[in-house]
């Protein structure tokens, strides 16, 4: 049964009101530091745009917008110039970096500057840069100060990168998704976990720890995920961020031009078409191979995608779907590559149906996704494996439906998981427990809602 609420329309939280409130709190009330938490697909970049245009275009402020990756800054620039009239924009980036071709050709995009001395000295300004670049230039006097610093994708930025920038600005707004993958730190962090300042943590997370009364706004809806999906992911991945779907049932309907052949896979696809946006196909757990690469499971994943495409899917009211509209997520590169080979052997072009890790899927979306359960095939679940952000990213890329593939033994592994009680630093939060809980809650929910579908070894 699809988990759609008939009360969505009447009880839909007003996402627009949150945007208005955010702009008012920042610009009129002058809130010095505001944290905006956003579920996936909630329109955080639209909020960033609106705030930037309000600040610079209306209030005449000098503002900077930073994001962790260059691609994110380019995405913001594309949106701002497409959606709004001329703004005093500037792009600060390394001289060694090239703009993508579409931005190079676009006259509305300012030519990047690599040094602050080339920026306009006075007057309203919307400066766009990566966090690293702004940090690098922040000691240069010519950079000056800002009235407002907006940080997009704030949960992908470490506190060590944000903290030095706070001296440059009177006000700061952080916008981010708390359910995503944690920031990448390449060294053991034990010493830093017990330090007075957790500089390796995501910036909003550390600020919330230090400032329990940190002003916060929460975007209340997702415009990407169906309500059925929200019902599954809310509790395990966003326990402190209640949200619902702004997608009406009719707007996220999948239809197949070709009838199913009554195989288990086709029945799972039919469930998705009926509105059950997340379905899990499970191969038997006994005699499952040890290790990350599971050939049989890769076959299942490839078959799911191949069957999806073979049945000529249509996004009702929008468009027919093809290989470009499908994606596959696998937490392990080697395992993903195995599936990619099997997709190619079935004629599915993997330059269109991309097979990527969750780290790369972050920020992207597809109408239909297939994912390999990150715990499938593991006998022992480490803190790394249990990291909930990974699975959260995998389960929040789809707009219509997502098929999870895995081994039945996942449930057993979760139930029998032996917690390591000595690994976490003294006094630190138990992220292994938090991750285990998230996975366990989600698995139980899938089980209770009859979304766990067993495949025999001959599932055709």
């Amino acid at each position, binding site marked *: 049964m699809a988990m759609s609420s008939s009360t969505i329309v009447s009880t839909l939280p007003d996402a627009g009101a949150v945007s208005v409130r955010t702009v008012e709190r920042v610009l009129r009330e002058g809130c010095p530091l505001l944290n905006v938490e956003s579920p996936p697909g909630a329109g955080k970049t639209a909020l960033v745009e609106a705030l930037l245009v309000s600040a610079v275009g209306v209030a005449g402020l000098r503002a900077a917008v930073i994001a962790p990756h260059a691609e994110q800054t380019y995405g913001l620039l594309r949106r701002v110039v497409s959606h709004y009239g001329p703004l005093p924009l500037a792009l600060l980036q390394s001289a060694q970096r090239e703009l993508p071709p579409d931005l190079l050709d676009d006259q509305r995009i300012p030519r990047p500057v690599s040094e602050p001395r080339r920026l306009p000295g006075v007057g309203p300004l919307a400066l766009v840069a990566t966090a690293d670049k702004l940090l690098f230039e922040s000691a240069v006097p010519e950079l000056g100060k800002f009235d407002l610093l907006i940080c997009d994708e704030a949960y992908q930025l470490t506190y060590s990168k944000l903290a030095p920038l706070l001296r440059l600005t009177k006000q700061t707004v952080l916008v981010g998704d708390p359910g995503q993958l944690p920031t990448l730190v390449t060294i053991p962090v*034990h*010493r830093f*976990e*017990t*330090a007075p300042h957790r500089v390796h943590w995501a910036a909003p997370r550390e600020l919330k720890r230090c400032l329990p009364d940190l002003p916060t706004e929460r975007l209340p809806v997702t415009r990407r995920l169906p309500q059925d999906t929200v019902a599954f992911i809310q509790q395990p991945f966003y326990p402190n961020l209640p949200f619902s779907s702004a997608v009406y049932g009719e707007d996220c309907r999948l239809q197949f031009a070709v009838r199913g052949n009554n195989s288990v896979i086709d029945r799972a696809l039919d469930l998705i078409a009926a509105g059950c946006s997340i379905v899990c196909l499970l191969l038997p757990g006994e005699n499952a*191979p*040890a*290790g990350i*690469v*599971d*050939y*049989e499971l890769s076959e299942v994943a490839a078959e799911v995608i191949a069957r999806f495409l073979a049945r000529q899917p249509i996004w009702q009211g929008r468009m027919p779907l093809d290989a470009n509209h499908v994606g596959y997520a696998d937490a392990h590169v080697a395992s993903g590559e195995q599936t990619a080979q099997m997709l190619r052997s079935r004629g599915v072009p993997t330059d269109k149906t991309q097979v990527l890790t969750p780290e790369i899927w972050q920020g992207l979306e597809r109408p239909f996704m297939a994912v390999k359960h990150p715990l499938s095939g*593991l*006998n*022992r679940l480490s803190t790394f494996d249990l990291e909930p952000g990974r699975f959260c990213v995998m389960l929040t890329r789809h707009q219509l439906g997502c098929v999870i593939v895995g081994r039945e033994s996942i449930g057993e592994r979760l139930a029998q998981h*032996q*917690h*390591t*009680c*000595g*690994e976490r*630093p*003294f*006094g630190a*939060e*138990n992220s*292994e*427990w938090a991750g*285990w*809980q998230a996975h366990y809650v989600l698995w139980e929910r899938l089980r209770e809602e009859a979304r766990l579908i067993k495949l025999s070894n001959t599932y055709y």
Partner: protein
Amino acid sequence: MSLSGARGLARISQNPRCDLQTAMVIGQVDEIEFYEALTKRQFEGEYGERISARRRGNKFEASLHQNNAAELRRILAPRFGYDPERMYVRNLADEIPDYMTEVHRNRYVRMMRVFADVAGGYEPPSVPHLLIEPQLRLPVSDSRFVYVAPDFAVFEPATKCYVVGEEKSMIVRAGSPDRVDLERTRRQAGAEALALRLLGDQLNLFERVRDRAIFVFSSPFDITPHQPVEEYLHAEVSEIRRALERYRAVSEELQVYGKEDGKKVVARAHQLGINFQNSCLSSCALFYNCKDRVSNTAVVLGDEAKDAFGGTTELEHLYALADGTVEAKSAEEGALAVRLRETAILLGVEDLCSGKG
């Protein structure tokens, strides 16, 4: 190393699939005697706590508890907003010394009375701010209990309930004590936190009792205490719950219920399943004995090898796959054989596999 109380449960929780260890804990066997009875050999390794370590532990605890727990009051008071000089302390070890009969039960009764007062809405100073050696228990059958004794319990104003505490003389350096010691202590505290929760549940205190503990360890300087650290112990409590389930199951299966059944445990030891794993080395006298039992399987190379190759996979089978003298039964086995040979080449020992496959 003791197998009683919280320590015994902590041991089971580290390896709940080892029925042999669980039976040893239930039967409260002497580990060395057990080893010698089982193996018919003298135990050659080192066993038990060093004199100096035990002395330090006693000294540390004494320094915290002397003068009406003056030092413990001093370090805990700021955390809870108390005036250390006005904290009311009860020491159940003083009230009911160890030499008395039914010590655990009697101390537990007193603990229940304190908790009943708390449930009745009493707060300090009507109930103690600080309890030294409170007694708690965990049920292992309808009529049997494992008694656990936190080193202290302190009343928290915010929840109007007690939080258990552990004192250990291990040294905190760069923010952390030794990992193995920390794990053991956390598990013990988990047993105590669970016992407190069960007592609280009996008295409808539910939400007021949380799965946490306060740890007082030592600084590097003599026996000066490090500042207390509070931790949530959800994982540890979960592990202890599982340990209790195994305790009950093995107890029923073997019909062993306590110390009086120690000989029965010894008699049936050979029939009991083991679960050899890395943590056995630092916790169990039978490590090498059990290692012998699994010496021809992948698990002898460690937990990670067990995960990669499968715990019951025989080493000879893996060599035969790599040699090609045995056919791979699946695509994965075929890939495994290839990878084993590749590693042999990488490490310069390709002569070890004849590569017939």
